[in-house]
């Protein structure tokens, strides 16, 4: 609970920093995303009340930009590249395999909170296509058969 309070204190400070500023909602939401790892309803309500706008407005911005998430990330965030090169090299099959192994749809987090599965744009490692990243660690030249072994490491 106190950890939660501390997060709200940080958010309050960020809101104060932007007090009276036009277009303050974006930087405040970015800060909230940083602090909480996502922007849940309570946090959105808190922001709306603090800056005097409506929850609809906060939610509208939070769902418009893909950088904001409404659900907490898992401990490990998997990003499978669906950029052109990776896609041509079969990254969709890799993505499907992970989804099947973890029993989680793309964009969602496993019930135990361990993995979040995302499809991403180009990761800039086309030479290694198809590519995925797990919390900053890059895996290249993947085939679906590699997946169980890789996941087992986490």
């Amino acid at each position, binding site marked *: 609970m106190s950890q939660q309070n501390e997060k709200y204190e940080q958010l309050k400070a960020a809101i104060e920093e932007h007090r009276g500023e036009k277009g303050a909602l974006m930087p405040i939401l970015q800060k909230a995303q940083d602090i909480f790892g996502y922007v849940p*309803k309570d946090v*959105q*309500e808190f922001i709306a009340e603090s800056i005097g*706008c*409506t*929850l*609809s*407005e*906060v*939610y*509208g911005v939070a*769902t*418009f930009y893909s950088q904001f998430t409404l659900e907490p990330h898992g401990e490990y965030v998997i990003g499978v590249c669906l950029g052109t090169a990776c896609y041509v090299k079969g990254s969709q099959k890799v993505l499907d395999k992970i989804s099947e192994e973890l029993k989680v749809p793309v964009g969602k987090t496993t019930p135990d909170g361990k993995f979040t599965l995302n499809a991403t744009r180009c990761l800039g490692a086309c030479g290694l296509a198809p590519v995925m990243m797990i919390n900053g660690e890059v895996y290249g030249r993947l085939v679906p058969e590699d997946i169980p072994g890789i996941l087992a490491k986490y």
Partner: protein
Amino acid sequence: MELVTLTIDGIQVEVPAGTTVLEAAKKAGIRIPTLCYLKDINQIGACRMCVVDTGARALQASCVLPVSPNMVVKTNTPQVREARKVILELLLSNHEKKCLTCTRSQNCELQALCKELGVDDTDMFEGSMNEYEVDDLSPSIVRDNNKCILCRRCVAVCNNVQKIGVIGARDRGFKSTIGPAWNMKLNETACINCGQCINVCPVGALREKDSTDNVWKLLEDKSKHVIVQPAPAVRAALGEEFGMPMGTPCTGKLAAALRRLGFEKVFDTDFGADLTIMEEATELLDRMNNGGVLPMITSCSPGWIKYCETYYPEFIPNLSSCKSPHEMEGAIIKSYYADKMGWDKKDVKVVSVMPCTAKKFEAKRPELSGTGEPDVDEVITTRELARMIKMAGIDFMKLADEDFDDMLGSSTGAAVIFGATGGVMEAALRTAYEVVTGKTLENVNFNAVRGVEGVKEATVKVGDIDVSVAVASSTGCASQLLDSVKSGEKKYHFIEIMGCPGGCVNGGGQPIVSATVRGDCDIRAERAKALYIEDENKPIRKSHENPDVKKLYDEFLGKPNSHKAHELLHTTYVKRPKYQD
């Protein structure tokens, strides 16, 4: 004021600087089609229907394009017509085209534009279409995003006019929708049920929760005494549904039509309004004389009441404890009148015809059941009544005028003006003046509280006291007024607040008026005229002189604010959360 001259379709026009090309064209007698545009409320250039050729690289949206000197505008070129057509085709490609059964058919701005611009090839609209669940859980408002064209007029009115903002745009691109945050249903939000969003929707994406089936069923049930009462504002607008010019009162035809529909008694909420004045004026004088909470604020508008309970709960003690007129009328029908007729109150069903969608919510409030039975059983809007009249094959325009039934159908001029902003205040002042001074009020017109301005103030001499009053309509204006009271900047004895801009005449249940007509006239003022005409023509114009109201007190209630009156005619309020868990 700086004037700018420009040429539109070869016609020279001179307009003040800052005018939009759309408005300038109107002055030149050219109507540019619009869809998302709503004068003074939504001017965001989102739908691009109003594009024109100014010689610039691309076509420009004229609703947001200010005029410039010597500008040459073309509104009717093949390129412009084609662009508008494509916009309509794109909208239609993701629009549920169930026009045959849509409540807005023939009264739909999208349909009208398709017809005007000759968009008729329906085979071209194949491909992806979004499908959404219809949100019909609110007691007042149905939201059907399958028909929404994302014009954002509802968002603008909710946010900017009503200052509530429980709906907004969500997500992006093809998946964009309008609705409450977190995909909540409307009934899970702090929506006040005012229905202003319905009134501005160009299509059938928003409509009232239909209760006509329930009313038809009641009318068929011969074991029940089904009694109807229409609100003051209904008579100011119902005629529009049958082609009468806006602002034409149709009281006689309204009473006749209700009788034809089969209601056993056709009473009038105006009687309830006179009764409200008796109770409310007495309550005001009591608060003023005995150190009660001031300013006292009116409680007739259920949209306003829910707004107060949710957004300004600190003003709950200021709310008059009086029920709204139709609830008072319902309670009297089920007590005094049922007893008089020898009816079991359980067999008496009261139907209210209201200009209002929030009344549907109000009627379900558990505290509004003075006799143990709900004061009012069903609420239909002016629009729903029009549909019932049409369905029953009643030729409204040919109906001869009839009167309301005795005795809960008699009323004064003070009651009929309840439907316009300032009306309750004026009616209360007419009575308060005479009660306090014991003298006859010669000029009953209080012009200072009339008119469509959002906030009005006046000081009225009542005997030795200068009574300071204020009137606000729309919850946005109410919030402005309440803030000035809260800060101590303003002090009043009595405040009238109506949830909708202009009061009930412009309520969320009234006939739909297209954006084009809204841009040409002020519907609040036009409809209010009908009520002030009725008031002028009434032989009695003060509530306390209504002979049947007097009789009701003599035979049943005793005095205003008596114990019995409190039991039946007064209510309580609850603080409501802004956010639900």
